[in-house]
């Protein structure tokens, strides 16, 4: 039995230097991800919510080590991913996969579907071409692309958006990953197709419940609610709230979460009229010069003096973590 969590992210930071000073050192950084930590168990499902620019995608890439963190550690199955060599990381790759945002752009337009998926097997196993073909067909069926033979020799531009995303999903689960990250899995798709893909994802997660942990990234908190159990709310590269999704939606603690939740359209007009409306004020400040103290204070309706001075730490409130001085007593 495992005594440690499947995924542990500790104090990860990613700063991008900007500008090209003549002699190397830049004075300014884009703090894309600033001191994030969380952990995930097998069977766990975490949603990462935030507006664009909040650092969610960067975080995902850091977890998979597609980007090198400026500092911090990532442990998958207790293995320190950062310290591995390129070769070792490559061998681990099938265990941690990602489904990207734009299904069209994440498939090589010049490769047939069979090669795109088959590639995974070619690299990491010694399977023969015949065996690979069978596995690919098997995967295509699993993601709902039937009859699979018809799709083998097609090119990405010959498929619809939904079909392409299914291919991406097939590619990701090909070698039974332990960690699956889905970055805005349905944003690029037509609204009518989204439901199908969400259902597909849910089926897959249900089926592999005992082997896999997954992270879903989205700006759409309603989507996260339907797929994930826990959620992380990010703002300008920092985690501002963490806890169970349902609870966050019902009773958002952090002022930013409150803003996000109140913007979700609610079908019942009674409730919609009566609920507390917190208009989203201001714009996201620049990532280069974030505000001093709590990043959110310029837009916060409850701002206090403290907030302008120092960034509030993550405080435990009822099994939830919030980074806000409102709860520090």
């Amino acid at each position, binding site marked *: 039995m495992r005594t440690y969590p499947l995924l542990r992210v500790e104090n990860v930071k990613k700063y991008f230097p900007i500008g090209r000073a003549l002699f190397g050192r830049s004075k300014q950084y884009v703090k894309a991800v600033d001191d994030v930590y969380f952990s995930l168990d097998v069977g766990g499902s975490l949603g990462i919510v935030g507006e664009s620019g909040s650092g969610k995608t960067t975080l995902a890439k850091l977890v*998979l080590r597609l980007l090198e963190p400026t500092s911090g550690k990532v442990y998958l199955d207790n293995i320190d991913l950062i310290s591995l060599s390129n070769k070792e990381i*490559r061998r681990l*790759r099938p265990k941690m996969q990602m489904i990207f945002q734009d299904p069209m752009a*994440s498939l090589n*337009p010049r490769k047939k579907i069979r090669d795109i998926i088959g590639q995974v097997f070619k690299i*990491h196993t010694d399977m023969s071409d015949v065996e690979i073909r069978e596995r690919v067909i098997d995967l295509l069926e699993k993601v709902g692309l039937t009859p699979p033979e018809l799709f083998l020799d097609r090119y990405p531009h010959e498929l619809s958006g939904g079909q392409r995303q299914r291919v991406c999903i097939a590619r990701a689960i090909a070698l039974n990953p332990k960690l699956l990250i889905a970055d805005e899995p349905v944003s690029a798709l037509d609204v009518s197709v989204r439901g199908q893909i969400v259902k597909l994802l849910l089926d897959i997660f249900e089926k592999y419940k005992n082997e896999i942990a997954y992270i879903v990234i989205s700006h759409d908190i309603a989507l996260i609610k339907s797929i994930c159990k826990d959620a992380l709310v990010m703002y300008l590269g920092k985690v501002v709230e963490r806890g169970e999704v349902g609870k966050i939606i019902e009773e958002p603690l952090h002022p930013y979460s409150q803003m996000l939740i109140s913007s979700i359209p609610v079908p019942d007009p009674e409730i919609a009229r009566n609920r507390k409306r917190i208009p989203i004020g201001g714009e996201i400040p620049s990532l280069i010069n974030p505000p001093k103290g709590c990043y959110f204070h310029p837009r916060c309706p409850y701002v206090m003096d403290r907030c302008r001075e120092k960034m509030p730490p993550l405080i435990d409130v009822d099994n939830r973590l919030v980074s806000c001085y409102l709860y520090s007593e």
Partner: protein
Amino acid sequence: MKMNNQGAAYTYHLKNVGLQLVYKTSKVFRLNPRFTVGFIIVLVVIILALVAPFITWYPPLKTLVGKPFTPPVALQPFGVDDLGRDIYTNVLYGIRTSLIVGVSSVTISLAIGILIGVIAGYYSGLLEDVLMRITDMALIIPQFLLALVIVAIFGQNFQNIIIAIGIVSWPGIARIMRAEFLSIKERPFVEAAKAVGLTDVKIIFEEILPNAIPAIIPYAVLQVNTAILVEAGLGFLGIADPNVPSLGLMLNTAQQYLVRAWFMAFFPGLVLSIIVIGLNLLGDGLIEYLNPRLRKR
């Protein structure tokens, strides 16, 4: 029963694909008049070069097949030059020379240029910087003069000319390759390939390169053009292999007898111009074809 239906459906799909391919290809010609004209011209030129031995009746470079300085006549439709050689024959064989030089030298520059462009494009950092500086510098040095000096020093033979032209032409290709690589490198499917676990080398060759090649093709065509012009220019100045029929060299000889024998200059140059025009149209047409298509995708 089910199997049969599937089989029939698949075959129908195939037939459709075949027809679709024909339709799509003919569309290229219909929508792009310049490309079509260029293509036809180049095709005709290539055919002429191939059948040269069959449509000429004198061996090339053979002297005194007719009285020197004879203007165009039935047996010598382009006239006879100062040494009694049949101009028509030599022009046709000259086409061969031009084409061979063009294609061979471009192959050399493609080999060098793609290699350097790929490395500079994929690996950022000091290496890329150095390579790019070298490439930019190499671009400004007048290529024609450099080729001239190389051939003059190393000997005026056919191989040297091809090698020299190939060597001076690589910077342009390297630059385009690098630009393509830089832009393709950022596309998500490359990242996805990394996520799947491909090695760098495989990513370069299997993912990025096939997508970068279409950008190079029109440039390569235009480069063939430049190579042919450089060879002709060198020949015009007298730098050529005397044992190989060359349109440029013919113009060189013609220069001395412009007053007496206009046909010595007219025909070789005319044919040369046609080749160049054809290649230009072809290359330009390709560039235009590839651009909107990329946008449509």
